[in-house]
């Protein structure tokens, strides 16, 4: 018994020493920190384009001899909580990737360094994608450098379209609605959706609103006003309701990840779905060969429906002590050659002069983005748009009632202090 106790104590002691030394080695003396920058990128970069990251690191090291780059990968779910903690403790990274919808709140709080004077030094900055560049600007100053973007496209079953007699891809909403009816006639399954759209998928629904010239909210004399109850916006909502009723058998109240559209598609439950272009990854083995994509048409023939421009910006936290070096790293990571790598991986590069003609990029010709308001995130978290769509689709409220109530809510949230 005694021998065993000593043995256990020794093992625990050894482990403790290992833990302490592992800890000590990492919290290196501050002298080293002076020649090191820390970069936070999302895991998408780690799995998608690790070579581009390595190349940017190498380029940075060549330009700054004696300097090192530490890249730490984050997940979307909690990277903001980590950022808050590091800002509070003054050891935030030197460069951070932020989602474009996450930027405004932090810019308004003064979290990022002002990069306006350096704007000219970033590659292609004069032709940055409007929607993406806007997400990195606040009060006329530049705080975020556009990194890459993605738009929404239609992913569809070429075989089902052919069987339904659809010879030409739709170039207007009316044509698409007619095609949806043809598809429904040929596929009489109980839950088959010619176009699978989740009821409260506001990314798709707001596209209709912007297509008809409406907007979610505008600023008038410094105050935000909800504009979903304008004539144009309500026309868009009505068009969405009509399209949904004709084309989607999805639940009217569910969100766009429960279930995932591509899972429904992979069961053969949908002939097409609207979503990011990467949806084509997960259509299931049986339909991989018969899947294609096209640009979602708007109600005016020949024009695309505005697609939600998702994307990321790169910013420099204001607590960084290496702001110039951080900006240089961003320069290396967003130069033309690196943007072309992102493009090759299926993303939209950050400048219009780099745009090619993939479906994704053509869809980005017309895009919309959320109001750049400090409290926009609270509107999203409060599910105001989702509730409005649910009320409209279930018929609980008329379009006018639902839109007016949502507009009032949005205004009060955006104007809250």
């Amino acid at each position, binding site marked *: 018994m005694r021998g065993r106790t000593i043995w*256990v104590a020794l093992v*625990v002691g050894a*482990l*403790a020493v*290992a*833990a*302490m030394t*592992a*800890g*000590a080695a*990492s*919290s290196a003396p501050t002298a080293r920190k002076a020649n090191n920058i*820390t970069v936070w990128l*999302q*895991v*998408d970069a*780690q*799995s998608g384009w690790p070579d581009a990251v390595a190349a940017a690191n190498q380029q940075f090291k060549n330009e700054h001899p004696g300097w090192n780059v*530490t890249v*730490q*990968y*984050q*997940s*979307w*779910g*909690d990277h903001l*909580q*980590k950022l*808050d*903690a*590091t800002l*509070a*403790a*003054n*050891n935030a990274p030197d460069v951070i990737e932020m989602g474009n919808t996450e930027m405004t709140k932090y810019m308004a709080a003064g979290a990022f360094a002002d990069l306006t004077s350096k704007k000219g030094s970033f590659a292609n900055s004069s032709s940055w994608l409007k929607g993406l560049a806007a997400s990195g600007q606040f009060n006329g100053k530049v705080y975020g450098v556009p990194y890459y973007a993605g738009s929404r496209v239609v992913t569809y079953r070429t075989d089902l379209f052919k069987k339904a007699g659809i010879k030409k891809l739709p170039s207007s909403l009316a044509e698409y609605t007619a095609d949806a009816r043809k598809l429904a006639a040929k596929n009489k399954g109980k839950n088959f959706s010619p176009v699978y759209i989740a009821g409260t998928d506001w990314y798709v629904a707001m596209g209709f609103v912007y297509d008809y010239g409406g907007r979610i909210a505008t600023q008038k004399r410094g105050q935000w006003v909800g504009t979903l109850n304008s004539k144009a916006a309500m026309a868009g909502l009505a068009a969405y309701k009509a399209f949904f009723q004709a084309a989607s058998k999805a639940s009217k109240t569910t969100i766009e990840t429960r279930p*995932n559209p*591509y*899972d429904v598609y*992979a*069961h053969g439950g949908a002939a097409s779905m609207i979503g990011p272009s*990467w949806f084509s*990854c*997960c259509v*299931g*083995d*049986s339909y991989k060969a018969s899947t294609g994509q096209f640009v979602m048409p708007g109600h005016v023939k020949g024009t695309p429906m505005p697609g939600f421009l*998702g994307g990321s910006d790169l910013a420099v936290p204001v607590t960084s002590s290496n702001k110039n070096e951080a900006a240089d790293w961003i320069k290396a990571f967003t130069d033309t050659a690196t943007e072309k790598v992102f493009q090759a991986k299926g993303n939209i590069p950050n400048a219009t002069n780099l745009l090619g003609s993939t479906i994704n990029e053509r869809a980005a010709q017309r895009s919309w983005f959320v109001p750049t308001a400090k409290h926009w995130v609270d509107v999203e978290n409060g599910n105001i748009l989702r509730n409005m769509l649910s009320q409209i689709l279930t018929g609980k409220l008329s379009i006018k009632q639902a839109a007016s109530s949502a507009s009032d809510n949005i205004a009060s949230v955006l104007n809250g202090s």
Partner: protein
Amino acid sequence: MRRSRRRYGQLGWNALGLAVSAVMVFPVYWMVSTAFKPDSGIIAETPQWIPLHPTLDHFRAAMAQPYFWEDVKNSVIIVLVTVAIAMVLAFLAAVALAKYRFSGLKVFIVLVIGIQMLPQAGLIIPLYVVLARYHQVNALSGVIITYLTFVLPFAVWTLRGFILSIPKELEEAALVDGNSRVGAFTRILLPLIAPGLVATSVFAFITCWNEYIFARVLLNDQSKQTVTVWLSYFLGSSKHTDWGALMAGSTLIAIPVVVFFLIVQRKISFGLTAGAVKA
């Protein structure tokens, strides 16, 4: 007649035990079987009870996720050190709480139970700021210290309960011959509450092993993270989630916990079997 009744009774209890186990463990079974199903089986409309075409692809994909083995090592170090230190310190404090009357006892009890009532979410940022000041961020030692402060109050409280439930007769018999040294006292008390110590250490082990939010915030380098943070990367990208790999990864990280339990669970049965043999 009596004996066969008892045998049927025993059979009945056993059958119930097995049925209960099956129902409880079903979600775990679902996790493990999903890990073996090909992607088409995972999203199938009619549920597949048994994987029809089991595959090891997801396990391969999971282990290919960067830093798997380093993170396992980190978790093992953190958890074993925390549990070992916590059990020793908590046992001593629990003895004090259970066996003594001293001024400050009530205050200490209130503190012990009070700390556990504090929602942990509120402490993340202040704790991070404090640890950063002493270079305990991005370090295993910082995580160990943090985990100790969460495990200790609970362990003290629970062990006190186990010590108090030792029947008076056993305890007083143990104090025969004027055993005057704390060490001897401990040596006799310890085996009596071995089952309680085991249950508490298993809980401490599992809590630390599965803890996520503090490990996430405190550890930056992927080479220093724990397996729960490693697992979160399967859910972290903006693209689709690889459910098969996530389930495979979860199955893999559950193995050490079960191994730990199987090793220590013999200690719990000891008291029961000692009596059963006589029957």
